[in-house]
């Protein structure tokens, strides 16, 4: 498929960028680094909504869904889970050189993989990751690709070669219409991600699964990972205690009378 021949009646080629996050965010009390060991990895919640959306669109319009994820060795499971939900193939980007990447370096690496895969009409991702919560990756991928972005999607329909997206903003909903290709970041709760069946899990293992290293992507070490990242962590500190809490004592009635007095003043 070339850059110019987008024929929607036939196929929707969709890429979904997903991230595995630790189930619990725990910080080592001595080194103040995130503890990864022994904590289970799960699909970032709103990325699951993005996968669900891609599969629903594929079921309705036909097409192909490719999952892309970057991370340490153990995220394979997360990608297979996505395949079990109905995606067609998965690309797993893994290399020691990618460690310590900030959002810019991550987006750059993902985009390199996206370009290597070919042309997509739709690129989906979750609004934010639940561990770092930056919301950066979507707009940055769109910028690297030079395509339109639509963030905060809560609803989406494809009609007449165009995409209509309902966005959830602070105190209003905005509906926009865009042309392909477009990157869309989705809000958690936009749909109910399906739970794959037992059979789906084993079918997923038979689907195409690619592992790409820094060499496969043709990148140099100074473009990626910590060295390719303009933001760095300088230090991490525990939150400070900011108030002296007075515990109200006495019977329930006394306590509530005291509090009522405080609230009234």
């Amino acid at each position, binding site marked *: 498929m070339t850059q110019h021949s987008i024929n929607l009646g036939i196929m929707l080629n969709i890429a979904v960028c997903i991230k595995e996050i630790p189930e619990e965010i725990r910080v080592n009390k001595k080194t103040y680094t995130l503890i990864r060991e022994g904590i289970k990895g799960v699909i970032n919640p709103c990325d699951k909504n993005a996968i669900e959306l891609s599969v629903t669109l594929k079921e309705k319009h036909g097409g192909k869904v490719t999952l892309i994820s970057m991370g340490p060795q153990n995220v394979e*499971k997360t990608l*297979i*889970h996505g395949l079990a939900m109905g995606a067609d193939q998965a690309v797993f980007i893994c290399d020691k050189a990618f460690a310590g990447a900030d959002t810019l370096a991550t987006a750059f690496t993902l985009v390199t993989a996206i370009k290597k895969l070919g042309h997509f009409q739709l690129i989906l991702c979750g609004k934010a990751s639940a561990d770092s919560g930056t919301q950066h990756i979507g707009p940055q991928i769109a910028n690297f690709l030079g395509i339109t972005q639509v963030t905060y999607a809560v609803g989406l329909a494809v009609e007449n070669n165009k995409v209509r997206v309902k966005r959830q903003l602070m105190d209003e909903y905005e509906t926009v219409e865009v042309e392909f290709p477009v990157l869309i970041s989705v809000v958690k709760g936009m749909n109910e991600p399906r*739970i794959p*069946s*037992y*059979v789906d899990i084993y079918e*997923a*293992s038979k689907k195409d699964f690619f592992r790409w290293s820094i060499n496969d992507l043709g990148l140099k070490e100074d473009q990626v990972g910590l060295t390719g990242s303009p933001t760095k962590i300088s230090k991490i500190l525990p939150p400070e205690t900011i108030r002296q809490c007075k515990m109200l004592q006495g019977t329930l009635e006394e306590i509530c009378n005291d509090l009522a007095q405080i609230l009234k003043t």
Partner: protein
Amino acid sequence: MDFSYTNEQEILKDILREFCDKEITPKVAEYDRKREFDYSIIEKLHKQKLLGVVIPKEYGGVGGSLIDQAIICEEIARNSFTAMVVTNFTWYMPYEILRVGTEENKKRWISYLFDGKKLGAHSGTEADAGTDAASVRTWAKLEGDEWVINGTKWFVSNLGKADYYFISLRTAEDRYNGMSTILVEKNTPGMTIGRRVEHISVRGINNGELIFENCRVPKENLIGRLNKGFYDMLVLYDVIRLFFAIGAVGIARGALESSIKFAQERQQFGKPIGDFQLIRAMIADMATEIDAARLLIYRALDMERKGLKHTKETCMAKLYATEMADRTTYKAIQIHGGYGVTTDFPVERYWRDARITTIGEGTSEIQRLIIASEIFKSEKIVLDSALD
């Protein structure tokens, strides 16, 4: 030998947790409080193709592995032992036929019973026949093309909810060579539901008395070999016990996870109680014993997969896992302190449910006797030597 789960098995655990969090966990306390299970779970599990994955494809199953089946049972039991026990009755009997049934049985019954809806029940116990399973007095006599059943069964799980019952009964006077298993479908005239019994474990499960008065069923309802039901039952127990045992592991894991969370959050003397060595020791013992139990179960399942005899290994796994669950849930309540005995926390339920595991599907005592007789390689029938 490989001791790690595959990616597929890790995902299986994840989706089960997702499923349980959505469909089971919110209702667990209600099962116990209202003494009523939510049977709609069965249909939902069937939709996910998670019921009886060990049933082969040719009989309408998916032909999954025994370890996968164990993972499913453990995860469900981790949320609700009640749910595991009930839902396992959708495939126990089809699996039983697969293991000990005749070719006619398999053709006639497996796909029919294993349809993702039907719930079975197994009935061996009578007022005077429990651990001594060969002493049942319920009789079935062949009259023409029909079996005529008379007698009263006790402790029948899924009572009144099951679509069919597998009844262990007497078809001849000989103690060990006079027992058979007969299938009775619900609403068969002559079979009535008796008194329901209250219990502290698995409170959501209907359990009680099943009464037969000249109950007539077709001849084809005989499952397995005529008068060899006792031996069939021994074979079957080798498998069913393992799934009961993995349920105990599930309970214990639930208790451990709740305890870890509580120990990290609950503060006394200015620090989380999880920082105190006595609590840490309990957590360490619980975690170690849970893993040990699971490994014993997996070993026996591996022998089942290879077609090896695993009576001793199964009894060891059942004995250890269930007594472990009893110890672990006791410690979990201890860690939770006063909160542990309240219904605000799940550990009191884990403890109550653990209690039945050392009794159901063969008491700990009988497991020990069988293990010992296997060790001493008695020439006699296992149970006889055990009881001598």
